[in-house]
């Protein structure tokens, strides 16, 4: 495994850093939902732009892996492109946009619509790993709360929402309980994606670079979105199917078409949408949507 880019190590990180991160990953898997502190390194991209996910991916990645990178569900958003290029350059690995072909999927803000399979690894970029952070800003306090499994604060917050609005007003980064023990931040994915974490066949790894934490959900692990008996957890629903591929029960992005209220709703997961269109599914606006939204039916 020779360096692909002169002067840098395979996948950028030096071996000692990789070992440190690998040890943290193993601990994270053994204690599902617990945030393992790690000495996060400066990366050549800024904190808050995926350094945690990048360090995790760099530490697990091997020459035979096939990498997919998404941001907002799309392979072609600028930050996803930049991270994919980084690994192409420093590790020379194969990359793909097809969820099913990937061995490692690094993501920001979405879980792919297509269920992940055994042997796949989903790496999340995490800005604020501490689910209790906005209720209690001090690490010393939140660490004790986790040690005691004292999560009353979170329930109080959710219940205050219900009292005020009639339902929980958290729409993304919706807290979950992992394997009946730790309350965990699923990263700012819309709560629509929370059910996909439950008993997933894939290993889910979470990296927070600036906050120096790694955590994990092993495959086949119960992940429960916090709720109340009289106010069960519910995900977002969309009135109309995707305007391009007619998919229902998927997360849709709202695209503003003009300044006269024209809107269309399209799949946030671009690979999912393109795969459906390639298979002949046609949404109501497929013929009329602007080219920069509809794109081509497939791309490599």
């Amino acid at each position, binding site marked *: 495994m020779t360096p692909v880019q002169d002067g840098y190590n395979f996948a950028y990180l030096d071996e000692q*850093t990789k070992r440190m991160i690998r040890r943290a990953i193993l601990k994270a898997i053994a204690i599902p939902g617990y945030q393992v502190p790690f000495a996060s*390194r400066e990366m050549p991209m800024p904190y*808050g732009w995926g350094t945690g996910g990048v360090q995790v991916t760099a530490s697990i990645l091997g020459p035979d892996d096939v990498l997919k990178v998404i941001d*907002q569900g799309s392979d*072609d958003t*600028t930050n996803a492109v930049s991270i994919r290029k980084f690994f192409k350059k420093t590790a020379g690995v194969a990359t793909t946009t097809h969820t099913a072909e990937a061995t490692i999927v690094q993501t920001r803000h979405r879980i792919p619509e297509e269920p992940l399979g055994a042997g796949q690894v989903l790496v999340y970029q995490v800005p604020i790993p501490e689910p209790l952070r906005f209720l209690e800003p001090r690490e010393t306090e939140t660490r004790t709360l986790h040690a005691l499994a004292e999560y009353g604060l979170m329930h109080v917050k959710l219940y205050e929402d219900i009292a005020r*609005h009639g339902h929980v007003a958290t729409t993304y980064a919706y807290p979950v309980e992992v394997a009946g023990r730790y309350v965990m931040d699923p990263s700012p994915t*819309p709560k629509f994606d929370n059910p996909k974490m439950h008993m997933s066949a894939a290993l889910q790894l979470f990296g927070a670079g*600036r906050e120096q934490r790694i955590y994990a959900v092993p495959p086949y692990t119960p992940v429960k979105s916090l709720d109340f008996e009289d106010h069960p957890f519910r995900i977002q629903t969309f009135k109309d199917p995707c305007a391009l591929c007619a998919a229902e029960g998927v997360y849709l992005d709202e695209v503003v078409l003009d300044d006269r209220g024209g809107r269309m709703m399209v799949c946030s997961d671009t690979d999912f949408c393109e795969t459906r269109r390639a298979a002949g599914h046609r949404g109501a606006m497929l013929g009329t949507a602007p080219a920069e939204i509809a794109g081509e039916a497939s791309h490599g």
Partner: protein
Amino acid sequence: MYVAVKGGEQAIDNAHRLLAAKRRGDPALPDLDVAQIDGQLALAVARVMAEGSLYDRSLAALAIKQARGDLIEAIFLVRAFRTTLPRFGACEPVDTGAMAVERRVSATFKDLPGGQVLGPTFDYTHRLIDFALAAGFAPPPPAEAEPEADGAMPRVTDLLGEEDLIERETADDRPPADLTREPLSFPAERDIRLQNLARGDEGFLLGLGYSTQRGFGRTHPFVGEVRFGAVELDFVPEELGFPVPLGTIEVTECQMVNQFAGSAERPPQFTRGYGLVFGQSERKAMSMALVDRALRAREFGEDVVAPAQDEEFVLSHSDNVQATGFVEHLKLPHYVDFQAELELVRRLRAEHAAREADGRPHYEEAAE
């Protein structure tokens, strides 16, 4: 459309090409030489080395050039380079008492062994724009003084220490902690705090230090001494077992002397705040010393009431590479989450409107 559904890669390449052209500026003008930056923007270089945590003048100068003069961007470049370097070990503690001093002032004594050495300083300059500089003015050569007979320049805190007027600080045998290798955890010992402050953002520490002077965690400080100059670095390789000189680096050291009324356990005595940074940066070294002393509140049984005394607040927010990354990440697309919020606000508004129409109160009580 910055979240191009297609074509992101080409857009990024084009943006970076444009950046490279902007960086170069007017091609009719000479290109900036890295040595010029090192020589003529030396204080910028010092700041980039200090907060980049890597003593390498020409690398810092190159980073400044690459960053178009954005020092935090340059610090970031240096940090990202530094993190890939192999680590051979830790050097011996530097002896700032043996510094080849270029500047040394004490506010606590009118005169002292070694004297007050003003050296290269903006202090006492009139801040008038010097239009002669724009015209390529060549300065007269600096004045030379005879060095003092014995040349010794003991540290002010050592002079105070002889009378036990200031707390003693003794080295322990523990290897110093290193927050680039161990994640920050709380409570943090002083070695970790000082390392964090030494890497911390100058502006952040300046504001915090200033706040202690204005009463938010007052420490009654006096500048015992600020000194700037070159110190020798020694390293003891495992296989040799004796120190080998690595060379010299320039540092600024500030020893702040602070009033302390004493407590049940300790007699009244001056206490210390300490600042040490690469290169010449008195503002940073002094701010660091103020904040270091403020963070020792717990140790002296002082009430922790102000931001500068709160180690979790200070240490978690001092790093400008972390801070700038997270602040600026708000530029990244967040439309998936925004979509979820849009849906919620629309629903809440619809529910609100429906209640208005029914003449019911806006908010239902939890008990109902």
